């Protein structure tokens, strides 16, 4: 595919003016996706400008990758083509906030941290404690489909996004949903956009329902000699009346990384403190409520942990929580920093499958000389990090071999295996989205409706979409 011509770049630049477009190689380097460099970067200031760019891109058959703070562009397969980087960080307004109604409307390029601060003034929150918190944008977080520890209680973005305005690949501004907390008018197209990795439309405005910040919160840690005890406690909590806000299980090797590292970016994640047992498995839970509720949760959790034969339990107060909480939220960037070839495999399973899945994954890793670094969310999602020390072709070969094995084994023991984060070299040898299932044809139909010319992020998504 030939790159966009200089004439086309001129046309694109004329839409937004020189100030908001650039073909400077130094700047373009910052927008590379899997080492593919765009020909131009555009920074639209409105949905109308986004639409104009996409109409031209459709006419000229250019490939456009929308982005925010560019913290998650490594997710997905390498782009088939990439002409235009569409930087949405100028779309950064809070459009409306009605604290009394617990609803909020923001532009896609708004930094998540600005949103969090605004809500905090009204003791409200968005349960979107996404990684790269200090930099990431609202739109990028949604489009990349990353999850957060808070999904244990609050679900994922699809459960609290009320509506989205977006621009389709052919440059039409459309919306679905609305601003009210309950609404069944029209199709929920916005749900398709969440996690679509910029392949269906460019998100320009998002409406959320917000949540009250719990009056107080606590953390709870319990340690176990092996994964069985931690999983038993997970099952006991699931069968109890307790509704923790977060629930994760850390392998000892993950705890070691947490104990040794502090995330580079966020300033709300203090040094580790003595909270990570590097020899044992840890179940970490967070819970919120009034004082009576917190006391009850601490009491019940301690009791359940004892029944599951925990070697130690500790309740974390406001002072002790941030080092643990911050690392759980920033787990992905911490792991990516831990190795030059960091590869993160995501395995989704039904929770009851975990008791077979985790030992099998551990064996797979250890047989191949990889330490078993795994974060397991209580809902049944395992992030398994493969962290070679060296960076050479042999390591890529080893990674490719274990990923292939995990694809086979993981789909037997779990339901879905994907490789959301890995080096570009590995992407040529590993299918990052796994084998397509019977639902791919429907997804291709959806793609063709939203983006008939395949202008948006071609090739990066599931099934080569």
């Amino acid at each position: 595919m030939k790159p966009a011509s200089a004439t086309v770049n001129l046309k694109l630049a004329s839409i937004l003016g020189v100030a908001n477009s650039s073909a400077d190689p130094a700047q373009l380097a910052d927008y590379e996706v899997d080492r593919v460099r765009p020909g131009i970067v555009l920074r639209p200031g409105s949905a109308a400008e986004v639409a104009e760019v996409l109409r031209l891109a459709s006419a000229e058959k250019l490939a456009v990758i929308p982005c925010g703070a560019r913290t998650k562009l490594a997710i997905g397969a390498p782009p088939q083509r990439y002409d235009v980087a569409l930087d949405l960080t100028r779309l950064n307004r809070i459009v409306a906030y009605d604290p009394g109604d617990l609803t909020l409307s923001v532009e896609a390029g708004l930094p998540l941290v600005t949103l969090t601060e605004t809500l905090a003034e009204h003791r409200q929150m968005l349960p979107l404690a996404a990684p790269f918190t200090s930099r990431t944008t609202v739109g990028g977080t949604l489009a990349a489909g990353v999850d957060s520890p808070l999904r244990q209680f609050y679900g994922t973005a699809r459960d609290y996004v009320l509506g989205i305005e977006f621009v389709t690949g052919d440059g039409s501004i459309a919306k679905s949903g609305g601003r009210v907390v309950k609404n069944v008018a029209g199709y929920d197209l916005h749900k398709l956009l969440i996690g679509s990795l910029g392949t269906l439309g460019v998100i320009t405005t998002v409406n959320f329902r917000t949540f009250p910040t719990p009056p107080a919160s606590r953390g709870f840690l319990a340690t176990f000699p092996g994964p069985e005890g931690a999983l038993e406690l997970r099952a006991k909590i699931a069968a109890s009346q307790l509704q923790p806000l977060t629930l994760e299980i850390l392998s000892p090797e993950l705890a070691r990384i947490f104990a040794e590292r502090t995330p580079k970016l966020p300033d709300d994640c203090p040094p580790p403190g003595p909270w990570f047992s590097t020899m044992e498995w840890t179940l970490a839970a967070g819970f919120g409520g009034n004082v009576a509720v917190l006391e009850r949760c601490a009491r019940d959790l301690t009791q359940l942990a004892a029944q599951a034969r925990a070697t130690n339990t500790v309740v974390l107060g406001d002072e002790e929580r941030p080092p643990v909480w911050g690392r759980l939220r920033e787990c992905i960037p911490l792991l990516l920093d831990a190795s030059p070839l960091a590869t993160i495999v995501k395995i989704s399973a039904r929770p009851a499958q975990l008791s077979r899945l985790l030992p099998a994954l551990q064996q797979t890793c250890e047989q191949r000389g990889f330490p078993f670094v795994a974060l397991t969310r209580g809902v049944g999602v395992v992030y398994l990090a493969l962290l070679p020390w060296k960076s050479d072709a042999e390591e890529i070969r080893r990674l490719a071999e274990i990923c292939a094995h995990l694809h086979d084994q993981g789909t037997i023991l779990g339901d879905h295996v994907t490789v959301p984060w890995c080096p570009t070299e590995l992407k040529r040898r590993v299918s990052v989205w796994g084998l397509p299932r019977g639902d791919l044809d429907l997804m291709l139909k959806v793609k063709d409706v939203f983006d008939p010319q395949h202008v948006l992020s071609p090739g990066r998504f599931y099934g080569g979409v």
Partner: protein
Amino acid sequence: MDPKIDAKIIHELEHLLGKDAVLSRPEDLLMYEYDGSVEKARPDCVVFPRITEHVVQIVKLAKRHQIPIVGRGSGTGLSGGALARHGGIAIAFTRMNKILEMDYENQRAVVQPGVVNMDLTCAVQHAGLYFAPDPSSQKACTIGGNVAENAGGPHTLAYGVTTNHVCGLELVLPDGEVVRIGSKAPDAPGYDLPGLLVGSEGTLALVTEITVKLTRLPEAAKTLLAVFETPDDTAQTVAEITARAITPAACEMLDGWTLRAVEAFIHAGFPLDSGAVLLIEVEGLREAIEAQAEEIINVCKLHNAREVRVARDERERQLLWAGRKNAFGAVGRLSPSYYVQDGVIPRTKLPLALREIDKIGKRHGFEIGNIFHAGDGNLHPLIMFDLRDPAQFERVVACATEVIALCISLGGSITGEHGVGMEKDRLMPLLFSEADMALMKRVRDAFNPGLLNPGKIFPTGKGCGEIRVRPMPISSAAPTSA
């Protein structure tokens, strides 16, 4: 579209499904020409598949003969979603009513679409679980219907609507292909197709199997009845409960007219001389609900509640809820017909909206009762009228349109849980731009080139005159003197 269902096709269907699974005599079809709305449209035949393969064969046959098809559960829908607007075959899923799997460990159940909502809860509650969406019709409505309409209910305030509780579907596409989307495990790769399908009102595919999440039953619940002199105080209370970020499991409002209608029928204990009541429920840990109930009582008193009663036992609690859930039936005793709206508004606008709706009713000369999910701003104004008088029907449609226009002007929506169907299609342009609807239509056309549930959601361009009038509504069988 002009469906040509002749004896030969009926015979083919009988051959496929058995004679007892096909209805085609006019007197049998009468039962299937309506749902819970004011709409009416008669199918040419009704079929009762038992397994997915039956559905595949029916769909293929319909495609071969170019006959429209529409899925149907128990017919409790309130927007005409399951009506055969252009005739053809109604596929009634009521015999596909097996619970296929109860997976307690993973808190999932796999059901056929014809399973009645309440039956699933009954089947799993011995394990301390239930299916959270609880539409008022839950004793009759099917989970397939809930999925099609993305049904809500009083307790969806805290637990979310149907879409938040569905994680996988088996579909039969309009060409007869069977596709599974989503999964029991979280985060199926690719686009969130279950998110698109749930609430698509049976216009994209027929759903033949549903994987749902099960929710743990709370250990404690407290049900409060707050009694007010005026609807305005009641609305202010709801706005403040929301603003203080207290999240009850349910927060329902009945205005004076409605609560008197209900009381005469159910004897739930609503004070007859009050202006409005709030039925509020808090659920969860014992330690949490005590404090919540106390704060709610304080807010009620702050806004001049005459009294706040706490249900003393389960019997009293059930009685209060019976009052709420049977309200529409009770209203049927007092008015020959009623037209229920389903608009949504931001909670902060509730007091204003109720005052305006009252004015709209007065202007059009109709009594409007309000009984609704106040906690999430989902209004259900009931406009009382007499369907037997065609002039009244035209005025009631005008009145309802004004109510909906009001909701939209306040930043709301035309429907919170009942769906667009064939009732509100003409209102869609008030909410969505041409581009919005063009995209939605393209999505529909990509899934469904035209035979599946035609004439729904999108405006037909024929205007209100086309709305079907039921000549003698079911409710008129009851005495009409109030």
